[in-house]
């Protein structure tokens, strides 16, 4: 048995890949759910109700999908150019911290729309800087960015801890380590009143469309794609690889930083060390499920959000540990990898 490269990649197969991958992941996770003595079908029904059952749960799912769209975009943009940015988690946190820093008094007096823009900008800048470091280390010293971005996640989380227990500590928070709150007038407006859903969702979808436009219609987008497909050929065709790589790093880091800034100003209002339940890492799964396509990211983020929100509800109702959400998401990453392979290769005897 061997693999043979397909001459044509059928479009239907590409569309079927994520569906097949998710289905396989659900079957595997179903086995684990039945280990807990629970009927998997009942558990999945409970998950769907938890994620879509009421107006409130739909808005909750959309709220959860918002940061995932942005961290998913961050990973998709980078991976497409073969920049292995695994530091989405750290970039998310520096973005959040930068926004909270500006939002508490520093930009007081500005009109609120301008203040919000400033906070988004600061979050993007912080994420950008955090990824430009490893990108420069790769260009200058040949240091693999996978390891540096991963290690930076740990450093950043400790830094956040240091800030919220030190200079940015909220002294009114009854001893809980959390940062000073963003002033009320600089919080993002709600999309639907009396829910947690905020305008960040619109920003995230807008970002996806914008990234799509940049990738499809600009020179930078084409160069970044070429650098990812075949760096030597791209360089031969006159693409400046270092410049392209730095551009991609700036964009990817900014997207992850924006995710953090939006989570703080849209939802929480302050920074804690558990602001993100792994949005940075989940973003990698989102990007892969979307086959690195920016518009696909929106759908993939929704799927991951459904799994997370649904699993919480299922866990409350039936008692299986909610860690099953992480199992479903991580297995679907692996099955998606295999599914993508079969869109490009066929099995021959």
């Amino acid at each position, binding site marked *: 048995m061997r693999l043979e490269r397909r001459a044509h990649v059928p479009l239907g197969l590409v569309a079927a890949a994520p569906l097949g991958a998710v289905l396989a992941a659900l079957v595997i996770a179903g086995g684990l759910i039945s280990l807990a003595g629970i009927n998997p079908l009942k558990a999945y029904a409970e998950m769907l109700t938890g994620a879509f059952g009421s107006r409130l749960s739909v808005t909750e799912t959309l709220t959860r999908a918002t940061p995932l769209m942005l961290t998913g975009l961050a990973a998709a943009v980078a991976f497409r150019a073969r920049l292995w940015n695994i530091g989405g988690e750290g970039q998310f946190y520096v973005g959040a911290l930068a926004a909270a820093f500006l939002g508490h008094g520093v930009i007081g007096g500005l009109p609120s729309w301008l203040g919000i823009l400033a906070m988004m900008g600061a979050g993007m800048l912080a994420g950008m800087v955090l990824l430009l470091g490893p990108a420069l280390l790769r260009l200058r010293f040949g240091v693999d960015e996978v390891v540096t971005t*991963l290690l930076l996640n740990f450093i950043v989380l400790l830094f956040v801890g240091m800030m919220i227990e030190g200079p940015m500590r909220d002294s009114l928070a009854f001893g809980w380590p959390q940062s000073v709150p963003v002033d009320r007038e600089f919080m993002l407006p709600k999309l639907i009143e009396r829910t947690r859903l905020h305008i960040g969702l619109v920003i995230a979808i807008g970002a996806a469309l914008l990234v799509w436009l940049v990738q499809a219609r600009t020179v930078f987008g084409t160069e970044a794609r070429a650098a990812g497909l075949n760096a030597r050929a791209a360089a031969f065709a006159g693409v400046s690889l270092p410049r392209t790589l730095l551009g991609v790093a700036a964009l990817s880091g900014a997207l992850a930083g924006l995710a953090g800034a939006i989570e703080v100003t849209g939802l929480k209002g302050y920074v804690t060390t558990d602001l993100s339940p792994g949005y940075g890492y989940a973003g990698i799964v989102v990007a892969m499920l979307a086959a690195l396509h920016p518009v696909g990211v929106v759908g993939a983020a929704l799927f991951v959000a459904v799994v997370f929100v649904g699993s919480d509800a299922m866990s409350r109702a039936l008692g299986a540990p909610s860690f099953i959400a992480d199992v479903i998401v*991580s297995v679907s990453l692996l099955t998606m990898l295999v599914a993508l392979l079969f869109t490009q290769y066929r099995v021959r005897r």
Partner: protein
Amino acid sequence: MSEALDILTTASLWAAVLRIATPLIFGALGALICERSGVLNLGIEGIMTLGAMVGWMTVYQGADLWTGLMMAALAGGVFGLLHAFLTVPLGLSQHVSGLGITLFASSLTYYVYRLTVTVGDSPPTIVPFQPLAIPGLSDLPFVGPVLFTQTAPTYLALAAVGITAWVLARTPLGLAVRMAGENPHAVEAQGLDPTRIRIGAVVVGSALMALGGAFLTTAAFNSFFPQMVQGRGWICIALVVFASWRPGKALLGALLFALFDAYQLRLQHVLDGVPYQIFLMAPYALSILALILVARRARVPEALMVPYRKGER
């Protein structure tokens, strides 16, 4: 300031160095074996987490400590096989597959742990490996408590370094593994199967990684808790680069690293007023620094991360 220097001459510091280094030695050796055969295994962080849980759980369910270690190695080997299957015969991205393995192994670990154990205020405990005093040698001043009063898995880790170095450098098997990582076509030309060699290396390497995790719960501590591996796996990946893919240097790197870690832990008590997070950041920062220093000079296995498909260039 002299207090800060005095720490360096205490035997307890140096004994701690070996203890802290042990999981890193196992992990780095495991990563090194995988990479020498041409496969980057970013599953390490998850495999160490899994090993930590499986080792602990086996003992918690009533088996003895050595059975715990064996079950951990077995679990690590199974996940290694999964990573090998995805990256070697299927030739999928080693980066993405490895991260997927890490996410899968850690989430499965937490799921199973939460399913099996009811955690009250503090996690349940086991009786871990006790320090094993080597008769005669452990009575030596300074060297005795440092080198010859460690737990059994630490001696095992040191032995594993020697065995790995010997197998890689001096045996036909080691040559085949190194060749698979440098030039798989040459392996094929010798009538050997590079696919099988790589799969074998990844399975063995992953089993070692899991032992590193199991050391944490069966010797260093006596319980399992989430996030306990704390990036040790990623640090091992950095150590392998730092060691230029050589087992002896990997041991040296792990010891240096552990020395720094043990020292910063003690320094925290001496230097009051500095936020403790600064000390905790140091190991990660040190790893990045080490990479910067050696990255250009390190001799990377030629075919690392290059998938091999028969008849395809």
